[in-house]
């Protein structure tokens, strides 16, 4: 694989992604969903809904920018993994379910180059979605609180942006599962399983930072509880599964 081949593969995958309704709708649902939930729950908690305030926790119950950011961060950690996971599952799984994978053999552009291009395009899409999500939450925060964010809130928006990007990276196992399972459903099942385990670990609290899929969420919500070592460890998670995906595409056979 050389850079020219990778550039061609990225151009091809980028063209497919740009025309994709799945990627567009996943991004819109995530952005609108997070912003709407953050606004609605903060407004409801601020209006004296005690049940909701109890569910959201002490920080969210205080109202204002901290509440908006706390809710947006919680929702992004869970819903983000699902939305990004669906997008990546589709990018890889559709080649098998649509049968187009046969056309990806016998080309001068190798299959690992195509798989890497899919991951590159996915991460670019994920980063663009993360920026849009952060802007949407910023706008919603201003609308709900009527105040510009304080320096601490800006830091919270920064953590939200970082969380969204890291959550996209944490969805990479979906690419490997779609390849091994030759379709969309194994990848979606993997993401749902990952979400469930991550939620359990996050709720369990102590030591959760060493579980890669949970580390970014815990860091974004409670920065003091997760150190650089845990975040670095979490960064190896997408690298590991990205490597496994490229290897699976290199060894791919249409034998089932």
């Amino acid at each position, binding site marked *: 694989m050389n850079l020219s081949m990778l550039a*061609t593969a990225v151009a091809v995958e980028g063209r497919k992604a740009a025309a994709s309704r799945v990627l567009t709708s996943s991004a819109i649902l995530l952005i609108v969903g997070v912003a709407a939930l953050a606004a609605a729950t903060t407004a409801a908690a601020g209006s004296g809904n005690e049940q909701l305030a109890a569910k959201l926790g002490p920080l969210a119950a205080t109202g204002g920018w901290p509440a908006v950011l706390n809710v947006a961060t919680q929702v992004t950690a869970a819903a983000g993994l699902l939305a990004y996971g669906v997008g990546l599952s589709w990018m890889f799984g559709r080649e098998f379910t649509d049968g187009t994978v*046969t056309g990806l053999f*016998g*080309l*001068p552009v190798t299959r690992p180059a195509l798989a890497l291009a899919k991951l590159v395009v996915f991460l670019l899409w994920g980063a663009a979605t993360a920026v849009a999500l952060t802007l949407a939450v910023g706008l919603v925060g201003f609308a709900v609180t009527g105040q510009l964010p304080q320096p601490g809130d800006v830091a919270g928006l920064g953590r939200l942006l970082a969380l969204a990007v890291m959550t996209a990276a944490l969805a990479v196992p979906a690419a490997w599962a779609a390849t091994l399972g030759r379709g969309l459903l194994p990848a979606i099942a993997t993401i749902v399983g990952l979400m469930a385990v991550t939620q359990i670990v996050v709720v369990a609290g102590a030591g959760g930072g060493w579980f890669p899929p949970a580390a970014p969420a815990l860091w974004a919500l409670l920065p003091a509880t997760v150190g650089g070592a845990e975040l670095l460890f979490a960064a190896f998670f997408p690298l590991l599964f990205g490597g496994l995906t490229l290897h699976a595409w290199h060894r791919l*056979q249409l034998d089932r």
Partner: protein
Amino acid sequence: MTAARIEVCGLTRLFSGGAGVQGIDFDVTAGEIHALVGLNGAGKTTLMRLLLGMLRPTAGTVHIDRQPLRTADWSNVGHLVETPLAYGELDGRANLMLAARLHGADAGRAARMVDDVLAELNLTRYAAVRARRMSLGNRQRLGLAAALQHHPRVVVLDEPTNALDPAGVILLREALVRRAAEGAGVLVSSHHLDEVARVAHRITVINAGRVIGTLDPRGVDIERSFFALVHADDTCHDRSVR
């Protein structure tokens, strides 16, 4: 001596249950249209998958233009096996542009190739139609255009007339004849004997995963000859014709 575009020697790949191909020897030379015929499940698609690296053989070798698959010049290969390379969300032109880029053409050359093949296969009116809105036959035609537009030296097509209307069959036949005249080696599989007889220079019969003989494309009763070969093979190996 005419150069072999495809050369297969002792090719074997068996699946659990006994399906697959074993001990296949054959070649496709430059300028030749070579047809593989056989009943459903005979092993035609498995053989084509082996030629294109979609499956790895358990024994035997494949050479494309005298190169093993690992070092073959894939920019000079065009193929359509089972499903056309047509993404539903993209229109005809965009699909062909992607296929051209994947075969190594730069953007300018790809655009010219696409214009030419749209005209050649009478697809111009579908250039701006999304593939998911096309009929099965036009999607197949689009897949064939993607396989042929870069004028490859090696063409591998599995049941290329599937879903094509009579006009599409004629357009395909003419396109294959042109590619062969340019020096390409063309391998097509089919179970339509009359169709391959019109276009093929050589016909190889495959049955139960093995090459069992050849047919003369200019023979008077090619269908009878085909069934005689298959029946003799099945009888010899204690299989009944299904």
